[in-house]
């Protein structure tokens, strides 16, 4: 099919009767097949096979204030996202009570720290508060939200404002100026 046909169906040269040249019925397909493969290559490369996925983010309504029971600081882990893919967290104490600030790197270490703290409090009561600082990147934030999905932690909140206490704490303990 894709081979080049050389020579038609012509007769011998010279001598004898002169016969009309018989045209070959086989068409040279090589260029067409070449083009076909070229197009295949192009379309394979140009199609996006993996469609992006999306995660849903719900944020609280700012216009409504709902009266809710205050959460005990002893059940709360507050995570501050710092620079260089580091997370600083305080656990069990409010920022004004001089808590210990621990620093972990994102990924496995962070997930382990969260799971340890979940185990300490006991599943249902645990609350994680995520506070990205201006040094952190969008990737860090998405990674933490994704980790929440991996750990299946339902009670977490994304808060974009740091309290003065927390700012002072981060400045003192981890030299992060915000």
């Amino acid at each position: 099919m894709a081979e080049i046909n050389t020579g038609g169906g012509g007769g011998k040269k010279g001598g004898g009767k002169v016969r009309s040249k018989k045209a070959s019925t086989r068409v040279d397909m090589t260029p067409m097949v070449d083009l076909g493969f070229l197009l295949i290559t192009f379309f394979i490369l140009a199609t996006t096979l993996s469609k992006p996925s999306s995660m849903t983010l719900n944020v609280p309504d700012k216009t409504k204030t709902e009266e809710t029971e205050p959460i005990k600081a002893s059940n709360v882990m507050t995570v501050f996202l710092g620079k260089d893919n580091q997370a600083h967290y305080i656990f069990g104490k409010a920022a004004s009570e001089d808590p210990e600030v621990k620093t972990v790197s994102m990924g496995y270490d962070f997930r382990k720290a969260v799971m340890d703290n979940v185990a300490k409090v006991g599943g249902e009561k645990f609350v994680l508060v995520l506070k990205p600082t201006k040094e952190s990147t969008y990737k860090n934030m998405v990674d933490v939200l994704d980790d929440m999905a991996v750990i299946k932690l339902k009670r977490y909140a994304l808060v974009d404002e740091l309290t003065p206490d927390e700012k002072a704490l981060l400045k003192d303990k981890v030299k992060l100026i915000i």
Partner: protein
Amino acid sequence: MTAMCDVAFLLLTFFILTAQFRSQDAATIETPSSISSIKVPDKDIMIISLDKTGKVYFGIDGQPTRIAMLENIASAKGISFTDKEKKEFSLLSNFGMPIAQLRSFLNLSNEQKGKLKQPGIPTDTTGAGPTNELKEWVYNARKANNNLRIALKGDNLAKFPGFKNVLATLQAQNINKFNLITGTEAPPAGWKAD
């Protein structure tokens, strides 16, 4: 040989029919990945992109919707666009131009458009200030198509304040549910969705 060519052309037909062309975007954005398995819808979607320098780009799907949105914003701002400019605008999958510079941008040739570094759509920290143009686009896009779903597409290296400004803009309009577009990654071994 014949069989192989048949298969090859069958594949070719398949790829041609299923191909969806990547439209030219105003900026390249590398999204972080997540284990989420919700796919991004193709229709009725508004995508707010945030590139690594914190610039904001805006895009919605559907050419008629884009024109309707532009007309809404033009009448709100007291400017008018020619039919040619509207047509040009409807071809942009996303853009990051302030409204004041939009007209001159639309009159550029395609080549110049590609070369130009778009300054991004102005936002602010409160989400409702007079300089915030993103809120106008979001509002007028939703006016043009009521069913728009809102998706946010941020770059890995984008700093958090840029995201916070976009979030503030959306929250100021009482949009409290949206999607973050991410790449797909496999969940850890043994992980099962609830």
